[in-house]
């Protein structure tokens, strides 16, 4: 399928969808959102790209193999449990590191929860794309 209209709008939309997925990922800590839904949204961007251009182009745009991406994501999520282990807390206890804090300002919070969510994001993105790429090959 090669439609100029679809291809033209896809260029724009893919960037927007990916940006939105990152927004959902970050927002998920306190509000509806999070790694799972953000990963689904991001995979929608690649699916759209594959439909407008081709499967090969979408694979090339992803750069790494989706299965590898899923495995890396799952390992990241598991790794987020490790700081808790070192500090003697139960698994997956949320721990925060504040960067650049000062008077009345806590700074940028970096947490194991975020690491977990990023891992889920990559795992879902990789798993969904692995399924999609496999089904689409005929």
């Amino acid at each position, binding site marked *: 399928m090669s439609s100029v209209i679809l291809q033209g709008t896809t260029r724009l939309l893919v960037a927007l969808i990916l940006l939105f997925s990152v927004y959902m990922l970050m927002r998920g800590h306190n509000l509806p959102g999070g790694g799972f839904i953000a990963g689904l949204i991001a995979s929608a961007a690649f699916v759209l790209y594959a439909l407008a251009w081709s499967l090969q182009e979408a694979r090339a745009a992803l750069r790494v193999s989706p299965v590898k991406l899923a495995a890396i994501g799952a390992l990241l999520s*598991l790794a987020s449990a490790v700081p808790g282990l070192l500090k003697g807390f*139960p698994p*997956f206890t949320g721990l925060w590191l504040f960067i650049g804090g000062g008077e009345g300002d806590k700074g940028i919070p970096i947490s194991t929860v975020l690491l977990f969510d990023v891992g889920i994001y990559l795992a879902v993105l990789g798993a969904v794309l692995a399924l999609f790429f496999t089904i689409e090959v005929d």
Partner: protein
Amino acid sequence: MGWLLALPFLLPIATGLFALGARRKPRRARAISLLGCIGLFIVVVIIFVRVVDEGTIAAQMGNWPAPFGITLVADRLSAVMLLLAGLVGLVVAIFAQADVDLRREVLGFQGFYQLLLAGVCGSFVTGDLFNLYVWFEVMLIASFALLILGGERAQLDGGIKYVALNLVSTLFMLMAIGMVYGLTGTLNLAALHVALAEVDQPAALHMLAVLLIVAFGIKAALFPLYFWLPASYHVPPVAVTAVFAGLLTKVGVYALIRTFTLIFPADFSFAHDLLLIAALLTMLSGVIGAASQYEFRKILAFHIISQIGFLVLGLALFSPLALAGSIFYMVHNIVAKTNLLLISGTARRMTGSFNLAEIGGLYRVSPVLAAVFFIAAFSLAGFPPLSGFWAKLMLVTASLEQAAYWVAAVALITGALTLFSMSKIWSEAFWKPHPTGEVRSLTSLTVSERIQRMLPTVLLVAITLGLGLFPQPLIQFCETAARELLDPAGYVATVLPSRGG
């Protein structure tokens, strides 16, 4: 503590990821997977020992206090189920080294195998209804992948039936969870024990019970919801069937026992009557189904169903002895059934087929295999002094205590028919000569394959024999576990210390 209880699922997930990463080098993937299984077995043994020493242990994930976070709990029932999962995981992993071909290894067999173990262990250790649902999903994904891995036509056919019915089960479970949350506002099992007792809506409770019985009944293969099992269990490699038979349906039974002892009130006779009828019909229909089959693995698949009936029977009778009988039966059945399926795989390797009409002569060429089959099969049929005898004795005694004579009668008839099927396999596969004479002996296999095939079998047979000859420690353990189940105050106090039970 938290880490100890989380390891039964964290370890297989990590192992699975590394095995998946190494899947293009099958030998390395196998080694990683086997190491992971050994590690898992060590972890579950440690948990078992601690639970026996200290009683119920609990941990709160992420340091969120119950009932807000996800609780992990191991009481005696959970501990023994974890121990069995670790054991089956390990022996089948050894057997799979000989049984699963390299093509399936490259497609990621070991990764999915570990994911399945993670789902099973997670179900046994969780103390949260929604988390239980998540582990069921993990199991469903992993088991579906294992069923269809390799992509043969029969596999896809069986896989579709399997996944369709299991999705229905999952849907029912999700509806039940929604109802529970609407009624009580919590999904923590211990908190539900307190909260559901205060719900004064019999209609809602009955509805909930039916939803959960249907959901877990499909997973456990209860009558009349078991049709997916004989349609799918004979299609994958036999190592996969063995781990499914040993663990998957038992998770459904475990979930039934857990919910109907912990969250529902003990005098809930509506659910117990329903379970009793389902259990009796499951026992009979499974064993009659098996009698009409003429293929090694299909006979065993139907017997899985029949034995699920026995497991649920103990829950339905709802007395200390009956529940203890159920747990004893669970231990006996997982060991014997997994072993029989492994033996069927080796028998096929020797004779070339699962079809009883086309094989034979195994007794003459490999008496060792015949001996282990004999012990496992007659234990399944309930012959003294093997483990199945004590399990059936406990359940039959429990039913006689309640003057439920027809229940005892059905159990005995089922035992007799089981014996019929096992004798059929014995006389066809082992006793009669092979129709074309093309039967191999164990000594014709390479040394490593012989060890991979026979070590798990001999180990499991030794456990069956040990349980049969020295049943007392396990019976005592099961009785303590049953008392814990019937009086959940200790469980609730461990999970929710602030309520003081």
